[in-house]
């Protein structure tokens, strides 16, 4: 069985104190726990002002939009530094669109005149 050190026992008692309980602790640590209780009372939360809260929320939301815009701008900048890639992408897109339109036209034509498609 392991024996816990004094700092560990004190830490556990502080945990209980902060959880609103009344921890049991040996007499020699009691003054330290009383100091902990005083600290807990004195160092209470200091709420931020409502105006500051609203302003920062706005800035955080603006930061989100800015980041998204920066992402698109960075992508565009990166692509513009490689004109070869742009030309290849453009040519590939044109071929893909042309092939799709032709395939659709052939398919529509075969549906309107099925006898022609059958070779009559």
């Amino acid at each position, binding site marked *: 069985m392991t024996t816990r050190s004094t700092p560990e026992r004190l830490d556990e008692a502080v945990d209980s104190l902060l959880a609103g309980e009344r921890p049991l602790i040996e007499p020699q640590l009691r003054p*330290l726990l009383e*100091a902990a209780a005083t*600290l807990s009372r004195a*160092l209470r939360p200091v709420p931020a002002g409502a105006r*500051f809260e609203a302003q920062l929320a706005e800035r*955080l939301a603006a930061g*989100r939009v800015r980041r998204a815009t920066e992402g698109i701008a960075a992508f565009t900048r990166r692509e513009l530094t490689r004109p070869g890639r742009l030309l290849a992408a453009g040519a590939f897109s044109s071929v893909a669109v042309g092939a799709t339109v032709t395939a659709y036209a052939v398919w529509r034509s075969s549906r309107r005149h099925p006898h022609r498609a059958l070779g009559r």
Partner: protein
Amino acid sequence: MTSEPRRVEPAAERLPGDPDLAAVRAAQADRAEFARLYRRYLDRVYTYAFYQLGDHHDAEDATERTFLAALAALPGFRDEGSTFRAWLFRIAHNTVANAHRTRARRRWQPFPDGFERPAPDADPAGLVARADEVREVLRALETLPEDRRQVVLLRFSDGLSSAEIGEVLGRSPGAVRVLLHRALRELATRLDR
């Protein structure tokens, strides 16, 4: 100058499950969800900054920097034994340290009288007694070495566990407990009335 949290050695003991993990995952997928974490932690980060810097304006500045840095670094947050809370306070800790350095101020400023915003219906006698106690505690804290003061503030004003404070300060949880023990021993002597 950066507020990016530095890597620390993994704590010997793992922190318990992160209660914020679902909200963090949601914010990583959709940054608009960060608002939930912001609302949850605004006052706590502000409290930490205020007790560190001793001034509402400086605390607002540090809080703003902390949340903007956290939002920017959020995609890099990984659930690797640390909690979001410890991660956020590490950013706040670095931001406050930067504020101290860049402004070349005293590390600890005397707090102005009535630094809190009292409730409109607060009892005046109770307010005076509380202000006296707060002043006495802050004076006692001024006498502590920097590392012990940090531990006390994170433990009592923000409610972080020893393991989380270890993550924030780059110490082991055991070292944090020893610092807390020494700090409370010193404070018990000074606050003894």
